[in-house]
């Protein structure tokens, strides 16, 4: 299932992402410490975090995750959105906490 389909199915808002919306999501990774995520987020996974700043985009780009999902009503700051558009990283917004957000994605892709 691709990022766009997940956004629709789970009721997430799309904050950024163009070509990146067609990327296939292979799994879910959840972490807010960037150094942890940097070393451990698997390629092509949806990365759930509350870190709505541009450094998350750098980590997403370097780890090649399929998308960033900001959970718990976190809003991305302007710099994050700019960088996400620049680097074509999809950013989705979820109203739910991390666990519930992950569960929704899990149900969508299973």
């Amino acid at each position, binding site marked *: 299932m691709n990022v766009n389909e997940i956004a629709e199915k789970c009721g997430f808002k799309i904050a950024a992402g163009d070509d990146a919306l067609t990327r296939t999501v292979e799994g879910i990774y959840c972490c*807010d*410490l960037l*150094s942890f995520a*940097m*070393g451990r987020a698997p390629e092509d996974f949806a990365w759930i975090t509350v870190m709505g*700043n541009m*450094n998350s985009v750098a980590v997403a780009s*370097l780890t090649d995750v399929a998308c960033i999902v900001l959970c718990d009503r976190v809003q991305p700051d302007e710099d994050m959105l700019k960088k996400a558009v620049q680097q074509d990283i999809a950013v989705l917004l979820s109203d739910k906490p991390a666990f519930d957000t992950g569960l929704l994605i899990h149900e969508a892709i299973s």
Partner: protein
Amino acid sequence: MTLHYIVPGDDFTRAGEASGDLKRKMKKLGFPSDVIRKVSIALYEGEINMVIHAYGGEITAEISSSEIDLTLADTGPGIPDIEKAMQDGYSTATEQVRNLGFGAGMGLPNMKKYTDEFQIESEVGVGTTVRMKVYNHS
């Protein structure tokens, strides 16, 4: 091929530019994705360290078909106790830096973990130089 990058100090907006650029170049050169990932992680951690602790610095990346050599040099405050700094979870980052998602004390350990050779030299008041190598197995 030798590449040089300048990392500006205290500018989080530009941290990740060097690792992002090197990643794209290695992709074009056809390096295996696990080798690219190791180099990207190690270099990004290094860039962040330079921004957080050392008022910026300079990166030299030498790319050959057999290995990638990275040298990160700064003229920052230096590290008084390297052994301590290398411990998982040890961090001297400020609250503000932690709020951005850094300062988990994983920077140097990650750099060591994801490279095949890792050397660090530091002198208080003079600066820090990190040398890392990642072998290309293909």
